[in-house]
Each structure stands twice: as C-alpha cells, then as structure tokens.
C-alpha cells in the first residue's frame, strides 16, 4: 500500500523478470525433490527402468497441457485472453475421434487397412484443428469485433462445446460402432532413441509429443526473434502504440487467435488419437485450465510453459507410480501437490509474473 512496498516490488520486477534460468533451476529442484520423495515413499522399490518409465510418462502427460499453454500464450501475447481452451480441446477431441472412426471405415474400402489407418488419423488431426479454428474465430470475432469481455467469450466457448460435443456424442457416437483404427503408434526416432537415458524418455514417443516439443522451440523463436513476434507482443502490450506504427492491431489479433487455436486443436486430438481410443464428454478434465496455469508458471514464455506442463505431468505420473507400489497411501494427497505448487509459484516464490499489459482490453481505433 505504501510507496516503500511499491518500490520494493518494482525493484523485484526488474531483478527477476524474464530470468528463465530461475525457472529451470526451480524445475530441476522440483524434479529432484519429487524423485527423492518418490523413493522415500516407496522405499527404494523404483529401479532405473521405473524412473525412466515415469519420466517417459511425464512427457506424454505433459503434451496436452503444453499445447494448451502454448495456445493461451499465443492468444494472450496479442492481448486476447482465451479461457475457452478447455472447450476447444474437447471439441477437437470429439471431432478427431469421429473423423478417425468414420474416415477409416470409408477409406478402407479403397486402400489397405494400414494405409487407411494412417491416413484417417492424420485427417482426424486436421479436422480437429479445423474445429478449434472455427471456435477460435468465434472468440476472436466476439472479442475483437463486438468488443465483448473476453472472459465471457471464453466461457461461452466452454459451455457451447460441452453442449455440441455432448449432443453429437449422445446422438451419433454412443452406440455400437465398428472398430476404428486406434491411436497413433509409438514411433521411436531412429538413432536418437538409442541414446541411454534421453532416448527412451524423449525419443520413444507418439508423434503429437514430438510436434509439441518442436512447437515449443518454434514458437519461442517466432515470438522473440522475428518481426512478426515483435508485432504480436507490441499489440499485446500497447495496441495504440503499435497502431501508430502502422501495425494492424485487429488483423494481428485475429491471426494470433487462429494460430493459437491450431495448437489447441493439436492438444485436443491428443486425447482421442494419442491417449485413448474412446471419447467421453468429461475427457479433457480441466487440462485446458491447467495449461493456462502452466503458461503463467512459465511467465508467458514457451520454454517456461513447457516446464510448467512437465511439472503437472510429473505430478500425475509420480502419483501413478506411487499407487502401484503403495496402494495404501490415499492417492488424493499426491494429486493435490501440483495445484498447490502452482499456487505457491503464482504468489511470487520465483518472482512475479506479469501478463501482457493490454490483456482483456478491447481495442478501439481512434
């Protein structure tokens, strides 16, 4: 309240802002603590294979969270808050599932079963992306053209896609259906997958996980090392200044939301094309919101967001490992930990996170 505290916080802001290595150190520490705790809890029963399996699982489970975080990041860097990621992912999961299933039935009459499976899975990915782009455009139009509150727009998308997916699922998908082609197989990357520890963890995954890892690097590069990224960030921080310099604020925001929606589509199809071969309307289970938390954890940076996503993935996979060896421990307690950790992180243990300044403000041309 007083000027002194204000000044202190300002100082803190300059010290730690953008200090990515703090996040990395923190994550490494968290990883160490997690495995120390794990081994203590299960009394050293987790051998090397088990540790590697847990870490592999961590990357697998972090994939949708990281996709959601990247979506939120792309949208918010341009000044659009997207809390409809949850709904977008649900929609993509449903569309992906349906297209995979019915596309396979159609395609296998023309080409071989294996080729039809591959083709229909990738078709499903694109169909899922298309569905999220449509939802993203709805959010963009409502919040850019009609200048509605963006949180309301996101809430609308969440409820709307719950309604649409649930409705279509009950009408068309909740019945005896012919078997589909199933999920993507694990594709070990030749050469890299035989590296001792990193190989099985990082390079023996399913394709969407690879796409996620590539996208993290790509978006980091695009946002911070290209003119396009500078434009997006300036629109998110100070749209009037950007407009004065001749940047089309509206178009930049539309493009960012569409790009973000493409990423959300990838995150959505993960559920039905990579995780399990079924769809149900509770499937996304709040991972879209957790992705937003991971984004804030990473201070609106792709690498940081990946680390945040990995922490959530680690929490889930460690819980699974613990419940195998020690079924007597109530699983709810370790399940709470990532959420509590996020809250602690948000309160400024590793420095305050500052959202883009023009977030959730409709821009009006003068």
């Amino acid at each position, binding site marked *: *309240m007083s000027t002194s*505290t*204000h000044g202190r916080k300002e100082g803190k802001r300059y010290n730690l802002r953008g200090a990515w290595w703090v996040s990395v150190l923190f994550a490494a520490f968290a990883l160490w603590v997690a495995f120390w705790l794990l081994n203590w809890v299960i009394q050293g029963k987790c051998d090397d294979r088990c540790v590697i399996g847990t870490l592999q699982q961590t990357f697998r489970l972090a994939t949708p969270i990281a996709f959601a975080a990247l979506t939120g990041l792309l949208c918010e860097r341009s000044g659009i808050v997207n*809390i409809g990621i949850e709904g977008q992912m649900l929609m993509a999961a449903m569309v992906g599932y349906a297209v995979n299933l019915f596309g396979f039935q159609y395609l296998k009459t023309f080409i071989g079963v294996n080729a039809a499976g591959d083709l229909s899975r990738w078709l499903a990915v694109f169909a899922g992306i298309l569905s999220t782009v449509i939802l993203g455009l709805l959010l963009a139009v*409502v919040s850019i053209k*009609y*200048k*509605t*509150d963006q*949180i*309301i*727009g996101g*809430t*609308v*998308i*969440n*409820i*709307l896609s*719950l*309604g*649409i*997916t*649930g*409705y*279509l*699922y*009950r*009408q068309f998908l909740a019945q005896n259906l012919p078997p589909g082609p199933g999920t993507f197989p694990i594709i070990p990357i030749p050469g890299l997958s035989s590296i001792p520890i990193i190989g099985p963890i990082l390079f023996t995954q399913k394709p969407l996980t690879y796409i996620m890892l590539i996208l993290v690097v790509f978006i980091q590069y695009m946002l911070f090392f290209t003119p396009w990224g500078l434009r997006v960030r300036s629109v998110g921080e100070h749209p009037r200044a950007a407009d004065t310099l001749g940047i089309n604020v509206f178009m930049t925001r539309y493009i960012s939301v569409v790009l973000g929606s493409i990423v959300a589509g990838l995150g959505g199809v993960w559920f039905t094309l990579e995780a399990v071969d079924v769809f149900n*309307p509770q499937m996304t289970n*709040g991972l879209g*919101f*957790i992705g*937003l*938390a991971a984004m*804030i954890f990473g201070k609106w940076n792709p690498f940081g967001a990946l680390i945040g996503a990995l922490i959530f993935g680690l929490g889930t996979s460690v819980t699974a490992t613990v419940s195998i060896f020690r079924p007597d421990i*109530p699983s*709810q*307690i370790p*399940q*709470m930990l990532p*959420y*509590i950790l*996020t*809250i602690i992180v*948000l*309160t*400024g243990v590793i420095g*305050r996170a500052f*959202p883009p300044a023009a*977030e*959730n*403000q*409709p821009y009006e041309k003068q």
Partner: protein
Amino acid sequence: MSESSNALPGPKISTESILRQLLKAISAPLLAILTAFIIGALVILITSGSLLSVFQAYQGLISGAFFAERGLSESLVATIPYIFLSLAVAVGFKTGLFNIGVEGQFDIGAVVGAFIGQAFRGLPAIIHLPLTLACAALGGAIWAGIPGYLKARTGAHEVITTIMMNYVSFRLTEYLVSGPIKDPNSSAVQTPASAESAWVWSLSSIPQRLQDPLNALGVTIFLAALAYLFARWMIGRTNLKERLKGSSPKRMVTLGFAAIVALFTFFILPPLSKAYWPFNDPYDRLHIGLIFALVASVLVWWLLWKTTLGFELRTVGANPNAARYAGMNITRNVVVAMAISGALAGFAGAIEVLGVSACHCQQVFYVSGYGFDAIAIALLAKNNPFGIVAASFLFGSMRNGADLMELNSGVSKYIISLIQALALLFVSAPAIINSIYRRRGRKNQRKDATLTHQREVKS
C-alpha cells in the same frame, strides 16, 4: 438501475417509467434467450430430420420442468444452489474478481456441513442448523479468502488460483469422504448421516417441526429480524418517511412491526399450519433453502448498492486506482469480496447436503456442476441479484426438464448447454441480436462491463 432511481431526489419516479425501464432491461435478455431456443430447435431439426422431435423435445422440456409430478418443485430445488452460487460469482465480478472457484467452495461447504451435521447429536435444531450453516459458510469464506488474499498481496491472478483451489478441494473432499470422515457402517463411500436437528427442513415437514416450541422460536427470530429490516427499509424510503413525520418515532414503528410478526409466528403459525398447509407431499424435496436464497439475493443487493462496504467493493471493481486514491483499502476489499463470495457458495453446499441429498450426507465423487453454470447465470443476469433469481430459475428448470426431454424425444440433454451458451453469447454481445432483428442499437450506450478493464489490482 437502482443507482439511478436512488440518485433522483423525492418521489419523482412515476411507476410508468420504472415499468418502461424494466421492460427495456428485460427485453434484450428475453430476445436473446428466445433466439437461443430457436437455434436449438434448428439444431435438433437438422440432426434428427423431423419437426416432430423438435416439438417433442421442447414439450418434454417444459412439462418436465413445470407440469410433471413434482416438476416445478424439483426445478426450484435446482434453482436454490444456482441462486447462491451465481450471487457468489456476482459479488466477485462487482469487485473486479473472477471467482471460478465457486464449485470448490461449494464442495468445501458441503463437506464441512456434512461433518458438523453428524458430529453433534442431541442439540436442538435452533442451535444445530444455524451452527452447521455458519460453519459451512465460514469454511467457504476461508477457502475463497485464500485466493483473495494472495491476489491482493502478491498479485497472483485469481482466475488461476481459484481454478487450482477447485482441484485441491475436489481431491480434499474426496480424501476426507473416503478416509477420515467416512461412515464406517455404510458400504457406500459417504459421510455418516447427519443428525435430524441439522437438516434443512423440507416444506412438507414444517407444520410438524413448528410444534416444537424451540423450532417455532427459531422461525420467529428469523422472521422478526426480516420484518424489522423490511420495516426499517420501508421507512427509510421517502414516501413513508414523510407520512410518518411528526407522528410516531420510527423506532417504535419498526419494532412494533417486528413484534407483530413475531407474535403471529410464535403463537398463530404453529396451529394454523397444522390445520392448513399447502405442501403435504412427503416426497417433495423442496426445502426452506429457497427462502434463504431469496433473502440472500435481497441481502446481496442491499450490501452492494446500499452500504458503504458495497460502494467500496464496486469502486474497487470499477477502477482500483481511483479506489486507492480515494483511500480505500484494496487488500481488505478484495479479501472481503472473496470471503463473501465463498461464504455464499459454502452455504449453498451445506444446504444441498442437509436439504436435498437422500442420505443427508456427502457422497464421494459428487460433482454438482452447479458452480460452472453459475458463472453463466451471473453473466446472463449482468450481476443483478434479482436478474440472478430469474436466470437461476431458468437454468434450474432447464436442468430439471432436460431428463424428461431426453426420455420423451430421444434428443440428448446436452442441447441444454448449447442453448445456454448461445443465450449467454447473445446477452453479452447485444450487437449480434440487434443485427439479427435489425433493432436499432442505442449508440454510446455505457458498456456495462462485468469485468473491469483495469483488472490488475496493485497493492
């Protein structure tokens, strides 16, 4: 609206202008809801291919919500938590806080209510029920106060912290219900049944309950307090004040009115209700929570628009910088707003456990879904407490009627979510509706942003 009517001095406002204002305020949401239903009908028509199933669906929806056996009362049962939770969301919105965590606060309230409800045996209801509800409200307030405090002190964004608190509370209640406070004598994973003294009375049990003088005393105190507040408020209004000027002291009138209500409730209501009572169906689940909910909506309106605290809360919500320069304590206001919000949600949770659930206990894996709908309701009603009552009734009856709709017509009940989302969209972006119906939009209309554009509260 209430602000403008309050600002005008004297009894200048004619009833006609109030009616026209009301009509203006209601016409836009009604048109939005109507349009949403029309689009819902189109969706059913396209997917099912027959006009008949559209009629069957909507006919089932309406009869399930109002005309089926106990339809209306079940709709009201669903309305009660909606009112509380969307009031909770609205209090947050008015302070510029987006409390997504009402579902978690509801859960915490429910588990606290279930625990206090079964922990004491043999207490009279006049102590036990208020104690249980108060503890649940306190639990919700603390649970919501944590994100509020973190927001005010460290700037941790409340949207994320309340979402995180949601998941923590789901796991916590799951753990508590399946572990420490599980009923050891039951095969189901649930808390022990709460004592009858903690139950929120169903309407059909009121006559029998009132035969106990202690219960009658409790009702008397509750109603007399309401009567007192009502009389004070009426006298505070200009017309009545002028009428009373010089004749009798205000205090005597208010106390006298409260005393008359108290005497009536204590001495006449018990025998009267025994002789004649309109709600006699013992399977009717409608309970006195409805009265609490209506009282709560009036109280929230009074708090937000008629008290200094409410003024501060709204100022912090509208412009935190202005509030700070005016000398308002932002930390305190943010924490208080979240605590009020959480208290309302926790109260609703306890009422749901003690009034609606068949075992009067908390069951594991109970996700109500009320909390997320409540956000939509609050936005739909533009945070007006009385609009919230109406919108809650709409959502409650849709939730209740959806089952019969699915049974009758085979149309999935998820169509309800679609309609609700569209209604919310059309209400929040009136330009869409205006362009559909070519209504002339009022230019330069003050944007009633539910969330302020200055959302970052710096302390």
